[in-house]
């Protein structure tokens, strides 16, 4: 079995890392640079940096802030939030990103995923799915930081995006985001069982056991964690130790 990647995920608003609760309310958590430096030192395997307002307000991405954050971080960094052109991707890469996560714009213009994968390679393009469970148990795709429903089925959308050439999928459960109630294992499993590409689970990390669960039962290839890392309720090292003791390989520092 290959190493499971533990990935701190930073929601960025203006110059701060914030904590979304059900993607609505925002609370300031800290500075992007100090948190990312801490996570790098503590053994994060990658970092995800999501600007939570860029997409919503059609605001331009703050590439200078990104540049200052990635300056001393020598692990892969995925950047998302308001990416809507080849130029945006180029700028993100120039500011230190290695991959981009695309949600809203891809939903409206799926062919953009294909163009982006062709230009930068599949390894550079991550599809970001925000999903919410419907009363009938199926999952619907949302955009704009969980505010807009699309009517699309999350599983079908994942299949389509894989055909368009994305290299990874980051799946966030809107129902679980910020709740610490554990990942939506069913949602993750529904996609990871057919996807030939890596799946990163996000939304709901609470305990080390909830992380183990989404890896073993959800078949996630990587886990993204926000609040419980930000507030120090879990540390990267403790999570990795917990997983290794239960037979799950990770990169130990």
């Amino acid at each position, binding site marked *: *079995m*290959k*190493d499971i990647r533990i990935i701190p995920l930073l929601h960025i608003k203006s110059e701060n890392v914030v904590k979304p609760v059900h993607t609505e309310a925002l609370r300031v958590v800290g500075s992007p640079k100090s948190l990312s430096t801490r996570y790098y030192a503590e053994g994060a395997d990658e970092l995800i940096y999501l600007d939570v307002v860029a997409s919503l307000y059609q605001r331009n991405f703050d590439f200078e802030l990104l540049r200052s954050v990635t300056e001393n971080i*020598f692990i892969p960094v995925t950047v998302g939030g308001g990416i809507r052109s080849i130029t945006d991707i180029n700028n993100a890469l120039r500011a230190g990103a*290695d991959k981009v996560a695309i949600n809203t714009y891809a939903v409206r213009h799926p062919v953009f995923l294909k163009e982006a994968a062709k230009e930068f390679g599949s390894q550079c393009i991550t599809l970001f799915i925000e999903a919410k469970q419907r009363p009938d148990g199926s999952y619907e795709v949302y955009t704009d930081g969980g505010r807009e429903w699309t009517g699309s089925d999350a599983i079908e959308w994942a299949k389509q995006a894989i055909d368009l050439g994305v290299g*990874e999928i980051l799946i966030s459960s809107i129902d679980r985001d910020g709740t610490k109630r554990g990942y939506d294992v069913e949602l993750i499993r529904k996609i990871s069982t057919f996807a030939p*590409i*890596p799946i990163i689970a996000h939304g709901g990390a609470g305990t080390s056991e909830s992380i183990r669960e989404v890896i073993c039962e959800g078949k996630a*290839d*990587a886990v993204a964690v926000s609040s419980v890392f930000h507030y120090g309720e879990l540390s990267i090292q403790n999570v990795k130790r917990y997983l290794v003791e239960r037979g799950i390989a990770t990169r130990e520092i």
Partner: protein
Amino acid sequence: MNHRIVIIDYGVGNLFSLQRAFRAVSGEALIASDVDTIYSADALVLPGVGSFEAGMRGLRLRGLIDVVKNAATKGTPILGICLGAQLLLSEGHEFGVHQGLDIIPGKVLKFEGLTQNEKIPHVGWNNISPPEEVTWKGTVLDLVEKASKVYFVHSYILAPRNKEHTFGLTTYGGKEFCSIVKKGKIIGVQFHPEKSGETGLRIIKNFVSAL
């Protein structure tokens, strides 16, 4: 004195994080795509992500194929990274067969035949270790422990023709492959040292220190 390290910009890949990694180990590296700068460099870095054919096309369009080959012949240290490492070999088998730089004899082959149920591309952290008869001491891998972890993203693998050019091995999905090639001062790594934390920085530092 300061040696001139040039990162070759041939239109593929993210050169900025690589440049920053050199800066972090106090090895200022220049990004350039013109023949003169590359010709007069003390050391070359050939980065790159993307397909083999696109990589060779990028070099050809900028008139750089012979410049890089000549640099190798006259003993200029070269560090190839990911696609850049693959291009050092004779030919690539991605979307047809394409001529490589042929600095190290060998082929670049599709990564297949995994015995365990693992996904391709191979994305994430994995071990590198020297082949049995090889020591890393005093080389660009100096002070890198056996089974150190580095970051990989690839679907094709290095297959050097001569055993003595295999300088590092990695196992994924039950299959062992060559993750580092080396011939004299020419070294190619399949992983991304600029994204491999302190282990990666150590390799870059060694490359700079050897100049």
